[in-house]
């Protein structure tokens, strides 16, 4: 990454939002920003940090930072769900593969399974061409081993793809939070700096 000597706006963000998350606009120069927005320092800090009336009806009046935090919690919850779902699907695929492998041999698969907490029983799974898959919402369908494998594989790929998008969303979100925090600090520092200048001017 080459160091730039001037404050260039060569690649300012052109993204204004991502999947419903508003982008935080980057402030080139604090003084210009305050003049253009017509806000004084305190109002500006409120806008970023504190209560802030919104046009979008979706969010009640929260500050930018609070909105971001709310969305972040939602995304983190979704991420946890997906991360739990993926190993489950992989286990199902493993079982289907094991049943298919047994098919050729003519032997039955003997398995111990949990009947209730702490109580196990033995099952004898004969040579079979089909399995039943739990689809959710109290629905279970019978599939051939091949179809089941294909369906599970597709679900696995979808889950992984969703997870990727989610992770990218979270990264975008965290960037916007960082930008908002840095802008807040800069507005505050600028104000302190201005006061110092005024103070110095008064004393001379």
């Amino acid at each position, binding site marked *: 990454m080459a160091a730039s000597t001037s404050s260039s706006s060569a*690649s300012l963000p052109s993204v204004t939002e991502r999947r419903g998350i508003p982008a935080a606009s980057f402030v080139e120069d604090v003084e210009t920003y305050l003049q253009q927005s017509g806000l004084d320092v305190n109002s500006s800090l409120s806008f970023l940090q504190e209560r802030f009336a919104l046009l979008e009806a979706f969010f009640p009046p929260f500050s930018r930072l609070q909105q971001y935090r709310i969305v972040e919690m939602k995304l983190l919850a979704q991420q946890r769900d997906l991360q739990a779902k993926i190993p489950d699907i992989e286990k199902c695929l*493993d079982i289907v593969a094991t049943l298919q492998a047994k098919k050729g041999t003519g032997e039955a*698969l003997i398995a*111990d399974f949990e009947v209730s907490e702490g109580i196990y029983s033995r099952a004898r799974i004969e040579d079979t061409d089909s399995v039943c898959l739990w689809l959710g919402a109290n629905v279970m369908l019978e599939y051939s081993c091949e179809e089941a494998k294909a369906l599970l594989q597709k679900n696995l790929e979808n889950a992984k793809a969703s997870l990727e998008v989610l992770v990218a969303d979270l990264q975008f979100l*965290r*960037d916007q939070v*960082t930008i908002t925090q*840095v802008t807040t600090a800069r507005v505050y520092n600028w104000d302190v700096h201005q006061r110092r200048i005024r103070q110095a001017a008064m004393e001379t």
Partner: protein
Amino acid sequence: MQQGEGSETQVTWEDQQNINKFGRLNNRFHELEDEIKVAKEANESLEDASNELILSDEDMVRFQIGEVFAHMPREEVEGRLEKMKEDASKELERLEEEKESVLAQMAELKKILYGKFNDSINLEED
């Protein structure tokens, strides 16, 4: 991460991007630490299972697949366990490598950001 009082240094878009990148890397670093911990435990469990298998002298072993324990001949279990241990060990290695890379990138960014902002920026863990 805070900035100091009344600093004069201008923050450019490139600086902001560096700060954002540092934040992302830091998050990834913490995630990796957790993932590495899980991976290490998985490796140990597989090692323990392997040892148990050697000590036992049964022909039929109950091997967990999903929620059930399937009865499997010993050799097959040995084979499966070996493969799982190999995969787990590779995964751990991959995670450790990624962690090294993240730490190196963070060190690089620290140099750049401290270079420009020195005391006005704090990039340490609080």
